[in-house]
């Protein structure tokens, strides 16, 4: 083993230790039934200026037509609900405030839950919590039986 290779291998743990911990974006469903009723979800992240911190209502109004007042930085596209549970890794992006906008869709592709939070990620930051609230599209589901539990639809333990 050459000295260069040895030095590189020695440096690897240091580099790994230096890599920052991911910041958690917690998607909060009103209850487990809302999670089960959600077939797919979509996360978008919008970079905001300091004078745009109150932009969440306008961003939610842009759903589902995606008629947003500012361009988004990241779009997860439609993902299965269980991927959100397992943890979607968002590519790293720069600092500053960002709006995290989530929409969940039913099996009939109606937007049934939405949520928006403005937060800033930085090294050592706490989690960012996006609370989902039912939309008018959720009403028909209230009268229908819940088709399982988070564990039954995704497998594994409750997060």
């Amino acid at each position, binding site marked *: 083993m050459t000295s260069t290779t040895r030095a590189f291998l020695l440096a690897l743990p240091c580099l790994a230790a230096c890599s920052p911990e991911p910041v958690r*974006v917690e998607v*909060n469903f009103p209850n487990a039934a809302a999670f089960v009723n959600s077939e797919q979800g979509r996360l978008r992240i919008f970079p905001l200026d300091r004078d745009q911190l109150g932009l969440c209502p306008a961003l939610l109004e842009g759903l589902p037509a995606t008629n947003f007042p500012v361009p988004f930085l990241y779009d997860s596209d439609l993902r299965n609900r269980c991927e959100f549970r397992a943890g979607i890794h*968002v590519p790293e992006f720069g600092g500053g405030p960002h709006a995290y906008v989530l929409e969940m869709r039913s099996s009939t592709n109606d937007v049934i839950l939405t949520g928006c939070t403005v937060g800033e990620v930085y090294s050592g*930051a706490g989690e960012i919590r996006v609370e989902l609230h039912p939309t008018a599209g959720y009403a028909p589901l209230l009268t229908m039986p819940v088709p399982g539990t988070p564990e039954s639809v995704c497998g594994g333990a409750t997060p």
Partner: protein
Amino acid sequence: MTRRLLGALGLVLAACLVMPAGVADAQRRRRREPAAPARPADPMQAAEQAFAAVDFDHTLEYAAEALQAGQHPRERVVRIYRLLGMSAGALGDAEGARDFFLRMLAIDSSAELDDSVSPRQRAPYLEARGLVAARSESMAIAVELVRAQASLRIEITDPFQLVRTLRVHGRAFGAPAFETVETPAQGTAMALVEAAGTADRVEYWVEMLDPFGNQLASFGSEFDPRVVGRAPVAELRTGSPDGRDSMLRDERPRSLTEEPLFWVALVGGAALVGAGVGVGFAVESASHIPVQTSVSFGLP
């Protein structure tokens, strides 16, 4: 009487000799034919004039004459080859044109043709350009000081075999005048320069010449010569046993790794680079944080 007859006969003979020219001029004036312009004595000017008159035959002839007259600077040699190439191309000699353009580009790889040149005439130029571009080498020299032989050893790179002679101008560093020698341009040429036998450093400039003494390339110039020799040496003073200072000269040139400053710079540079990488990594890490989702239900 006899003398008078002889004088008249002389006049008649003279008139007979002069008359044809006078009559021809008169006839030309009558027909309003333009007289052919007198050819300039300088063949280069003559070639330019013929080219301007779209007389490619004469352009070829005069440009070749100019080339053989020799002693042209590099820019003019390029111009001569351009005239030769364009004329040969215009006369339908594509191979000849390519050869002339090849020589032109070997001397100056950035030499271009006018935009006005037709595509047919441009084709040999483009072909020559491709041939030149395919050769990674261009005309070059590498010079070393050979003190034992009071010479400059000159290694020559001449990919198109155009150079016949090297004209070498050398002088001791800082001396007022150059001495000039010419030497055949073989793979490695030795140019005897008197100053090379004694001087620590020799200033020089070299011209590459073709068989006619035309300049094909110049390395350095009279006003911006190159330098070959040992680097300026350090002077060390030591105390001699008899108490007098003696001057010692470190004759052996020190290599780069023997210079303490080299190691200071190396270690310092490595430390700076390391610090820079660390800071950059920290800043990068601070400004780019990964994000991962999770799920929760109900109020926490």
